[in-house]
């Protein structure tokens, strides 16, 4: 018996399926592909690929160093391709940096003063907590792909018409 091969896809290796609309508008399904989006993004653009009222899933092309971000609530980062390093800092004045009632990640202008919390290195399939009240920065030596679980914020980019399927596409 031959062994099973699990297909995860990647930045340079993805084959999207699609919506075959029988009696429907394919736009209803807001269909995109994480790797396709990342392959056409600038480094660390936080492109929404999923949205449910205020909550979003974002895709980031990780490449080089990201800006520092801070967020009042927990977020999560799932590495879907490549390798990503995360640096976490507990800012001395977290509430000044980010309104504790605010939602979504905020880009910081400079390196926040504070205590080092730690360092995480994610490879494909690894998921990290980005704890609320912390500041964080991503770093990737080679292009990698991050999927976030968060709330829509000032850094979230929406360009649905560019990333989503709008015509019916019977998948082979």
């Amino acid at each position: 018996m031959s062994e099973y091969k699990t297909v995860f896809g990647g930045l340079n290796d993805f084959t999207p399926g699609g919506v075959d609309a029988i009696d429907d508008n394919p736009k209803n399904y807001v269909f995109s592909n994480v790797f396709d989006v990342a392959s056409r993004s600038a480094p660390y653009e936080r492109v929404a690929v999923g949205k449910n009222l205020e909550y979003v899933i974002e895709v980031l092309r990780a490449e080089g160093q990201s800006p520092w971000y801070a967020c009042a609530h927990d977020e999560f980062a799932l590495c879907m391709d490549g390798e990503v390093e995360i640096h976490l800092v507990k800012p001395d004045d977290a509430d000044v940096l980010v309104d504790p009632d605010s939602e979504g990640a905020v880009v910081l202008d400079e390196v926040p003063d504070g205590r080092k919390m730690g360092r995480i290195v994610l490879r494909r399939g690894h998921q990290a907590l980005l704890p609320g009240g912390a500041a964080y920065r991503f770093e990737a030596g080679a292009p990698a792909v991050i999927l976030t679980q968060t709330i829509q914020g000032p850094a979230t980019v929406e360009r649905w018409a560019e990333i989503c399927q709008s015509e019916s596409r019977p998948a082979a």
Partner: protein
Amino acid sequence: MTEALQTHYKINPASNETGYKSYEAGSFKFTRDEYFVSIVWPKGAHTMAADGFMRAMMRTVAWGFFYGTLSYDPVFGTTNHYGIVDMFAGTYHPVFKENGRDHLEKFKAEDLLELFRDLVDDWTNEGYDPFAAPGEDDAGQPWGRKNGNNADAVTRIRVTANRMVGLPGDAEIRTDANGFPQNRMFADVSSDQPLVEAEPGFEDEVAAFNLYDYLSRSDVTWNPSVCSVVKESLFCPTSEEFILPVEHGNDRCEWFVQLSDEITWEVKDKNTGKPRSRIVMRAGDVACMPADIRHQGYSPKRSMLLVWENASPRIPDMIQSGEAPVVAVQF
């Protein structure tokens, strides 16, 4: 339609012939024989093969009726109103409806669940696992006369992380040592763990785990389980193989991210069951299921699917009133 809450529940003794107990909830009656389950209500009757019925009933119980509607097939199912649940026959089938053969009764969810738990326990024979895909070695067979139980399989607790799997005091990661070997179809998935270097005092907050390894060790199919939480945003990844045992008609938008391999979704109108779309999702694909459809997935190889829910209890009313959209994003 009867709006009052049903209070009649009855478990009848095992049949001399088949060995199975029979069940009554409101005016619905459930019996099973060697191959089939029969559901009788005042205006009709319905027959399902025992395998499909047991897989669907297992999810109903494990999910506590889940979100929205679980259609076992085009005729029979339940709708969750969170505390109250509808059980229906023909309500979402245009022909049953047109001919007045549809029937719907309302129940207190926890009371109906209690009856269904007993049913799942009694109607699951030794060695049969309704959570397994039929091609798995330890799936067993649902057929035949009453022959033992499989309590370990049918009483599994659905994992719900409070913050994230792997955090101290939260849902545990899965390993060989704690009884979760990799599935045969995920034997090639890497079990390497992320590098986590926490400074003193931050051990509880600097955390990561291998989600793909975690999913490769899931011993159930089609059982979305909460793995990480941002307020009401729940990541509920799951391992899928064979067919989603129900047509799921959600009462809100539900998102899918296909993490590995491929699933085909058949999408139908929620109320009539008329076909709307066929969607193929491959690794990296993201799609939203609108709030006015029902969907059923087909996974030829075991695959990893991230189901993303917004658990806000306000959403069904917001969709009814038009405050929340039926389609998640307009572009």
